[in-house]
């Protein structure tokens, strides 16, 4: 039925009339998968610019559907909305968003926002990252210590050996959390593990870099599947999604480590007594690599301006304000609870992270800042391909099938590589 409705939209939808350049006395709609900043902050923005913001909070999946539906039907949906890192290639190729370099000095922003390159497609900046999500290893140091591990691992081999030691000493039955549910979180976990093994997923033309047994991507998949088969990962994790595993396993002390965890989780989840039984026990660990710390792959959220926006110039002003260093620090809690934006923890600007760290408002802030500056890299250095969603589905459905035992790692990797080959050709 939804497709039918889109059909009607496509059939009868009006062409984009082009947005207005007005930036005062207008009301813009901002649609993101998060709660808005505090009303006082929004009022201050309205007072200083004359732009009123109507905030719409949609869940992530619905938001992506709305973005596609509105763009396809060429109808207005919002003046500023979510640009997920994984859809940058698709949105860029379809020209569904205004190039942000038309409105902001994106070159100057690059040094301050290390993840901005993840939002570039075809030479255009599709969106501006407003948080700095990347994947990082977390460990429960108390459980590691209970197994007699005093020196934290720096390589994959040491890390794996430590997990086996935790299991063999009976500290916990299953020490590792890998979310094997057939969902996006499994794909990103594999990307991070592949990066830790020293590899990449696709080359610049979209060809798979993991198809043969010796490649880092293949080794990463094998390592993950071995982990569940050898009892390092709870068997029930074949139906556990990423955030579910963090909340019900890692935050409850049922597992000792999550190899590819969300940056910010130590402060926002594991150190919050209401949601965690492991307060002060979980720390970030420089992600173990082949011969030392590996890189951390980025999965930040961005904000951009759809082509059907009514007031693109006003939306750009809002994005400039929303992603300013001061506001990001405020929203993340650097300057008191009154200015906090719910669910916002890690600024995309280094200055924001620095301010939070200096004020002691970000648990593990120094380490996160260093990781963000030095080792956080895009999953796809050339930008996510336009066919990424279809590729990702092939990744998570096949790795999930391998975890359930219904197919071998070899077959799963072949199926994923075949999908990448088909889509990139």
């Amino acid at each position, binding site marked *: 039925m939804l497709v039918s409705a889109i059909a009607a939209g496509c059939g009868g939808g009006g062409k984009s009339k082009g947005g207005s350049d007005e930036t005062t006395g207008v009301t813009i709609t901002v649609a993101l998968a998060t709660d808005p900043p505090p009303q006082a902050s929004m009022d201050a923005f309205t007072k200083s610019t004359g732009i009123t913001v109507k905030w719409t909070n949609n869940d992530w999946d619905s938001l992506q559907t709305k973005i596609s539906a509105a763009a396809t039907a060429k109808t207005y949906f919002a003046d500023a909305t979510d640009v997920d890192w994984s859809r940058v290639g698709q949105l860029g*190729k379809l020209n569904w968003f205004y190039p942000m370099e038309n409105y902001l000095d994106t070159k100057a922003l690059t040094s301050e926002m290390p993840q901005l390159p993840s939002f570039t497609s075809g030479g255009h900046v599709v969106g501006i990252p407003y948080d700095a999500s990347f994947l990082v290893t977390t460990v429960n140091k108390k459980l590691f210590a209970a197994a007699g591990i005093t020196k934290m691992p720096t390589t994959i081999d040491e890390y794996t050996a430590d997990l086996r030691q935790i299991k063999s000493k009976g500290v916990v039955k299953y020490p590792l959390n890998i979310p094997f549910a057939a969902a996006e979180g499994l794909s990103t976990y594999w990307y991070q593990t592949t990066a830790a093994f020293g590899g990449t997923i696709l080359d610049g033309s979209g060809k798979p870099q993991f198809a043969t047994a010796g490649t880092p991507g293949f080794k990463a998949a094998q390592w993950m599947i071995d982990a569940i088969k050898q009892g390092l990962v709870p068997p029930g994790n074949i139906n556990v999604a990423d955030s579910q595993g963090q909340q019900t396993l890692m935050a409850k002390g049922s597992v000792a480590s999550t190899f590819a965890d969300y940056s910010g989780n130590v402060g926002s989840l594991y150190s919050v007594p209401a949601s965690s039984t492991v307060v002060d026990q979980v720390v970030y660990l420089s992600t173990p690599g082949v011969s030392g710390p590996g890189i951390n792959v980025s999965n930040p959220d961005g904000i951009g301006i759809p082509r059907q926006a009514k007031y693109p110039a006003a939306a750009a002003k809002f994005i400039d304000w929303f992603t300013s260093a001061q506001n990001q620090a405020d929203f993340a809690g650097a300057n008191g609870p009154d200015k906090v934006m719910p669910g916002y923890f890690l600024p995309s600007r280094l200055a924001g992270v620095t301010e939070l760290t200096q004020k002691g408002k970000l648990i593990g802030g120094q380490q996160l800042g260093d990781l963000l500056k030095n080792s956080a890299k895009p999953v796809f250095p050339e930008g996510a391909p336009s066919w990424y969603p279809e590729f990702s589905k092939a990744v998570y*459905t096949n790795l999930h099938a391998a975890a359930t035992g219904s197919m071998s790692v070899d077959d799963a990797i072949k199926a994923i590589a075949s999908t990448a080959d088909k889509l990139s050709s």
Partner: protein
Amino acid sequence: MVAPNHGVRRARRFDFLPYALVTPLTLFIVALALLPAGVTVVQSFFRVDELNPPTVFNGLENFRNLFADGAVRSSLVNTGLYVLIGVVLSTILGIIMAVTLQQRFRGRSVLIAVLILPWALPGVVEGIVWTGIWDSNTGLLNSVLSSFHLISDYQVFLGHNRLLTVFAIELVQVWQMTPLSTLLILASLQNIPNDLYEAAHLDGCTPRAALWRITLPLARPGIAIAMVQAVIATLNVFDQPYVLNGSADTGASLTMQTYFISFQNLDFGEGYALSLLITVATLIISLGVVKLVYRQVEY
């Protein structure tokens, strides 16, 4: 002087009111149902791929691609199982509950009100609630089985075995659908005159015989409607498998594939084609159910 001609009827004035009253609804149905349906039928024969323009006629190519797609074929099997399990279970449970609720007893009204609750809940919420039951690491079912020493290790209910996965997911939808089935059948039962039961009782008919010879035959219109709504709901199941089992082949439904094809791959042509196939299947199965179960009833 001309006498009035009483024998000739005056021409009736055209009455606009009925047309005015139905016009908004007609426009609503045309704009939001018939027009999209028509466009879907037409566009399903075109390549409508946002990432691969332009839109061109491609005959049956979309349908060929769908049947060549392993994920779609797998979802077809899953959806068939959802329909079979869901329609059978919700109808049987609906009949049992309706017959029970037909009796007068204390708290009946409260029970009916409580019964409606699962039907009123959104599918996503139900999926989340039942995740707490089926979850293989921390779920209620494992906890209960374990505390009664019926299992030594926690069991994995979803994801390993297709039949078990589909059954477990469909139970959640049955839990949602059965209240409506019950109410539809109950409405039918309440139309049955009490005289029939009294006459049957005087003729020595047992309650069980009355159920088979009076209640069920006369409830067939309600049962048919309940089954048709169950067919429509199960053929379009989305929220429960998506929340409980992600996109895994062991539980993915056809409507999930429609979503992936249309809104992730942006291949609307194939999405239209799959929508059309689901609609046609819904019509055929629903008509089959009506033909098989529905009977005109007169008291």
